[in-house]
């Protein structure tokens, strides 16, 4: 047992020595040149592994100390007088054989042996301990427990004239509601943090004379335990903080990260609905998720009643929950009877979730809105069926068909009847054709906003439309709304497009009646058939109902120009610059910074950081490329920096313009 303990201690001692030796070596290397946290963590892992392997190897080699037979032989070897009594007793399992043997005789030998094997490693461990003790404070700690922010623990022999801004550490503490832990960044230059976070920038030495400048604000450093610190709060806007120590300065770009509002999806009802009666229950279901947690969620409904200028609203919530989880599902049931709905009322339903953001929020997310409308009594054809005549177009079709049949019969009978009868019959059909043409004309002119029956006043007027183009020109004139973006149609308004077949029928009927007037039914028939086809096209045409078009008032600008009784002034204002001018200024600034890279890389990095802060709001992709460039420049990765800068430049220039063909010579595209 004594031997086993001694050998175990020896294995542990050599293992410990291996660990200490590697740590001391790493600490010395770190003293010479600071090792990154990742490297130090790797070295620590290697040291521990080396210690374990050493101890395990020695323990394996000495494993026979646990064998009674081997121990008995080891004792017999040193005490021949035992004459194998001990070994025989162990081998046969008969202790009586060795009953006359006194163990005291070899116990002292075993103790001496155990002490002898332990002594070297523990002496070495003692020496290593002394070395660790004499190493500068913090040197071993950086190797023993490497972590971000321990740059301040690294021993330094810098003079008082040196910058106190290196090394620099920033502790970022997110707002309490997020439940996230503080993170530490070494040598911060570009910090991303949630809005409302605090950033404690720390450095070595007293804080006197160290100041952080953010915009017009100046924050003095505080001193505690021989270290200075400045606490900054992350605002909603990106900022560049300039920390100054005498002639030294560091720039830290703070990029705020916004706590996103919850994302809410309304699962049921899946679509808008119209209900005949306000009865029954509607099942409501929604999913909500958030990046940090949903504090509350509920369904909201608004009941709108009324029309025109007189609306009344009621609202309420349903199914309110406080899940305090990142994802939740809410369910509720809406009783339509309880809302006291009337025909025409509309219920707007949506799900709303709030996060726990008590700094810049709460962030409120809402789903799409579904509407449940209660139908008015008069909007169901199946309920209120009233006899109605065919539409105007329908009547015209029937009449035109009848006239064509009459004309065909007359043309067929033409060889058998007298000229007077032919003329009389043809003029009779012409009169009907004229009547029908007036009906079609009324339809068209009513649609175009003209007065019904316009044709009555210009029966033989020279100003009447002679051709379809003439008629269309009139229609365009009557509906001159070409400035309206709703009417983008490549020169033809939808009003004219819809009426075009009827206008064509109108003109064809005109030509037909002219032929019939001179008793030429055969020559009138093609025109009549063209009119019929046009009417059929009009019937099949898609109806477009323009919603909410306000009555159009065209202001006579020249007439009222400067006729106002009051006079104002706008002396101090200047025209807005075009949207692209800001981009041009940014391109120029970026170009200047890129030129600076070759001459003064640190200054260029600082300038890029400030440019990045300016661009974060309106050009996030460009800002991201700048961030990559500065990181690569700090690491000395020239190729990566160049690639990122080139990408940033391309992003500034915008998408390339694609053209179908080459531009004309001399024309700047």
């Amino acid at each position, binding site marked *: 047992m004594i031997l086993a303990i001694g050998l175990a201690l020896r294995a542990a001692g050599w293992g410990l020595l291996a660990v200490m030796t590697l740590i001391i070596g790493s600490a010395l290397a770190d003293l010479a040149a600071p090792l990154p946290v990742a490297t130090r963590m790797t070295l620590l892992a290697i040291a521990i592994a080396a210690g374990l392997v050493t101890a395990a190897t020695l323990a394996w080699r000495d494993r026979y100390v646990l064998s009674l037979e081997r121990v008995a032989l080891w004792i017999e070897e040193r005490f021949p007088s035992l004459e194998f009594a001990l070994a025989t007793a162990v081998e046969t399992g008969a202790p009586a054989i060795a009953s006359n043997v006194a163990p005291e005789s070899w116990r002292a030998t075993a103790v001496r042996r155990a002490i002898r094997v332990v002594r070297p490693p523990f002496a070495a461990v003692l020496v290593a301990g002394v070395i660790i003790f004499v190493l500068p404070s913090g040197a071993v700690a950086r190797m023993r427990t490497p972590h971000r922010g321990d740059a301040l623990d690294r021993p330094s022999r810098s003079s008082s004239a040196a910058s106190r801004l290196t090394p620099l550490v920033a502790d970022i503490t997110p707002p309490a509601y997020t439940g996230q832990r503080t993170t530490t960044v070494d040598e911060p230059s570009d910090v991303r943090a949630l809005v409302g976070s605090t950033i404690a920038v720390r450095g070595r030495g007293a804080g006197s004379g160290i100041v952080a400048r953010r915009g017009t604000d100046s924050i003095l450093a505080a001193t505690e335990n021989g270290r200075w610190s400045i606490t900054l709060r992350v605002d909603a806007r990106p900022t560049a903080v300039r920390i100054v120590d005498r002639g030294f300065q560091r720039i830290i770009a703070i990029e705020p990260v916004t706590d996103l*509002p919850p994302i809410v999806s309304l699962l049921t009802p899946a679509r808008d609905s119209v209900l005949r009666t306000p009865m029954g229950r509607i099942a409501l279901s929604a999913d909500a998720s958030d990046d940090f947690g949903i504090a509350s969620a509920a369904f909201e409904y*608004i009941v709108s009643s009324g029309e025109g*200028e007189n609306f009344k609203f009621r609202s309420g919530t349903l199914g309110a929950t406080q899940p305090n989880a990142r994802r939740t599902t809410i369910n509720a049931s809406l009783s339509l009877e309880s809302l006291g709905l009337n025909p025409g009322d509309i219920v707007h339903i949506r799900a709303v979730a709030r996060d726990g953001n008590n700094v810049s929020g709460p962030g409120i997310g809402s789903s799409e809105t579904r509407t449940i409308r209660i139908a008015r009594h008069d909007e169901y054809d199946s309920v209120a069926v009233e006899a109605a005549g065919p539409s105007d177009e329908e009547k015209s079709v029937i009449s035109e068909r009848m006239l064509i049949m009459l004309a065909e019969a007359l043309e067929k009978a033409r060889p058998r009847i007298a000229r007077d009868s032919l003329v009389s019959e043809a003029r009779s059909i012409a009169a009907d054709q004229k009547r029908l043409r007036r009906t079609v004309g009324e339809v068209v002119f009513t649609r175009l906003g003209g007065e019904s029956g316009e044709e009555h006043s210009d029966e033989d007027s020279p100003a009447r439309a002679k051709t379809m183009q003439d008629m269309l020109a009139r229609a365009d004139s009557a509906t001159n709304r070409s400035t309206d*973006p709703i009417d983008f149609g490549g020169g033809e308004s939808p009003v004219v497009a819809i009426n075009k077949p009827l206008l064509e029928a109108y003109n064809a009927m005109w030509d037909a009646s002219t032929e019939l007037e001179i008793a030429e039914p055969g020559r009138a028939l093609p025109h009549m058939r063209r009119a019929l086809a046009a009417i059929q096209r009009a019937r099949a045409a898609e109806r477009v109902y323009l919603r909410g078009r306000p009555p159009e008032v065209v202001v006579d600008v020249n007439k009222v120009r*400067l006729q106002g009784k*009051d006079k104002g002034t*706008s002396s101090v204002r200047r025209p807005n610059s075009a949207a692209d001018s800001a981009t041009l200024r940014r391109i120029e600034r970026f170009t200047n910074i890129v030129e600076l890279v070759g001459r003064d890389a640190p200054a260029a990095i600082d300038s890029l950081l400030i440019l990045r802060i300016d661009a974060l709001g309106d050009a996030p992709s460009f800002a991201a490329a700048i961030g990559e460039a500065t990181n690569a420049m700090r690491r000395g990765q020239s190729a990566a920096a160049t690639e990122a800068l080139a990408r940033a430049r391309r992003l500034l220039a915008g998408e390339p313009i694609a053209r179908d063909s080459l531009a004309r010579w001399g024309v700047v595209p």
Partner: protein
Amino acid sequence: MTSEFVFATAQYESGDWDSAPLLPANIIDTIARYTEITVAPTGVVVPLSDDRMLRYPLLYLTGHLPVRFNEAERRNVKRFVDRGGLLFIDDHNHDIDGTFHKTATEEIARTIAPLAELPNDHPLYSAFFKFDGPPTTSHELNGWGDNLVHKHLLAVQRAGKIAVLFSNKDYSSEWNYHPESKRFLTVDNTRFAVNLVVYALTA
């Protein structure tokens, strides 16, 4: 983009965007009456979901009913504001407890940023005519709405410039009459619209 100013009314999918149909003509008349700004004789209605809304420096949006932008509308409104446009929203209910106010302000907060009170000495109030704040309308105490005289307009500002202007004054009712009727007024109640347009067109 044309060189003349075109008064644009924003059309959105939800709500009654066309509740003040005579207002555009009245504003156009006012602009011509007091300034030399080249102005189109008629306004336009432009869907918020249509990229063509980005052509106009000033967009007028009103209504009584809930305002819920769809994704395309939300995206375009954001682009419009990012490009320096001014979105003028007027609550036709003139009711801070009303559904238009609640939904529209919420939609703007979601799309752009939360609205904040606009100081009554803001350059908007001296961009052309001098005002001590938003002019009061005859509709604010007409028995409808919240029956309050609203002391401030609300706004979202970008780099010191108004990006979204929100009014509970009900200018949509106040200015919604035929411009010919302006001659019967002792004081032209649409003069503030000149400030709006001048502000939107200048910096």
